[in-house]
């Protein structure tokens, strides 16, 4: 379980996270939605310590860090072992083949053998339908394919939580669908995920839980169904703004 308590992050001009309190359950998929600049990416990145909030605490299972105190390297690595991150622009390593992109971390960090890590990589590549691209470089693949590879790269570290920061925002609708189907399958298999997304259809179909963030505050947290049926005026305006229907 991931738990954020009283988390505050102040950028120079902007309060990105304003006393955030939230939990993410094991094996469950959660979607974070909200307008641009609402703080949802900052919230997600805090879980992996890519962004360092000013105060508050982060608890993942038996590990707790207090953001207002120094966090040791050991704690940072332990926290990061719990989760894997998928970025908007996938951030694959351009100088490594698809296979090496996936096996480098298991080999370097987990000290897995070449055989073991490659066997696992082939399984993951088959799952996303890209096993025949193992020896290619990322620049030879489409954006959607690269994003699927980056999901494999994160999963190869066997994270408890897969964190995805607008994973399909840089993709055209067809490629987006390919990526979302993979995420749907993962969710059905019980992989815990926290997804920052603008795709409400994905949120509706895949996420058990939904968090709505605006101006650094959580305005809604609860079952996805409830969100779409909410009579809260702000939520209705937000949903209406995403739809062509009057």
């Amino acid at each position, binding site marked *: 379980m991931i738990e954020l308590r009283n988390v505050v992050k102040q950028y120079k001009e902007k309060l990105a996270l304003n006393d955030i309190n939230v939990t993410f359950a094991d094996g469950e998929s959660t979607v974070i939605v909200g307008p641009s600049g609402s703080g949802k990416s900052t919230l997600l990145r805090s879980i992996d310590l*890519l962004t360092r909030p000013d105060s508050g605490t982060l608890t993942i299972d038996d590990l707790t860090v207090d953001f207002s105190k120094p966090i040791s390297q050991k704690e940072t690595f332990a926290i990061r072992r719990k989760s894997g991150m998928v*970025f908007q622009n996938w951030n*694959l*390593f351009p*100088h490594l083949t698809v296979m090496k992109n996936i096996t480098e971390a298991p080999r*370097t*960090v987990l000290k897995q053998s070449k055989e073991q890590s490659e066997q696992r990589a082939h399984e993951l590549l088959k799952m996303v339908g890209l096993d025949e691209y193992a020896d290619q470089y*990322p*620049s030879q693949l489409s954006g959607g394919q690269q994003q699927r590879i980056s999901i494999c790269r994160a999963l190869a*570290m066997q994270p408890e939580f897969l964190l995805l920061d607008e994973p399909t925002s840089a993709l055209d609708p067809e490629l987006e669908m390919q990526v979302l189907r993979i995420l749907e399958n993962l969710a059905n298999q019980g992989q815990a995920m926290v997804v920052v997304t603008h795709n409400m259809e994905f949120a509706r179909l895949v996420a058990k839980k939904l968090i709505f963030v605006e101006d650094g505050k959580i305005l809604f947290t609860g079952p996805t169904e409830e969100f779409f049926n909410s009579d809260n005026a702000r939520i209705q305006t937000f949903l209406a703004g995403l739809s062509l229907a009057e």
Partner: protein
Amino acid sequence: MWQTISDSLPQLIAAGIKFTIPLAIISFIFGLILAVITALIKLARPKGNVLVKAIWGILDAIAYFYVWLFRSTPLLVQLFIIFFGLPNIGIQMPAFTAAVITFSLNTGAYASENIRAALLSIPDDQWEAAATLGFNTRQTLFKIIFPQAIRIALPTLSNEFIGLVKDTSLASSITILEMFTVSQEITAKNYQPLLMYCLVAALYAVVCSLLSILQHYLEKHANRYIKRGES
């Protein structure tokens, strides 16, 4: 004329193999190591307590001073200070050692800026991706950042190396028997300065041309993962 050339060519080539090329290669290797260390000191901003920050501040100042010093003074003067000057304060060394030290320090100062630029050109995204996968700083540098930075630095580092090969001719002024020294000695005997100096110039050009060809193939290899037209 051909007789003069065929008489002197073996001596010149021997001097090149014995002194010019080893001097350039050894100095470049030491220079590169210095350059990487200097670039990393300038770029890194370690977190930690006051003591760590104070030590880093001092290292940072040394790095800036070093680069400033060697870029702001002529190479020939540096060579003279280290070989002829330092014995005055009791530091004496063979000419070859003095040359290697001077050329290494000089190359290191210039190349550190090339390497710093190459490291800066790697997007922060790559550091973040490595961090989320659990790489520590050292692993990120060696597995992710350096391999990509080398590709960026290759053209400018090749420039440095080619420049260094020619600069080794300055070592003639501190008694090293490299190619240019030998050409001067032969000239003193056969009174053919135009021919001899053109000949030695041609030899430098041959070595540098070979290096340019090598650079071409290294770049081709380094660019293997870049889509054409995107570089």
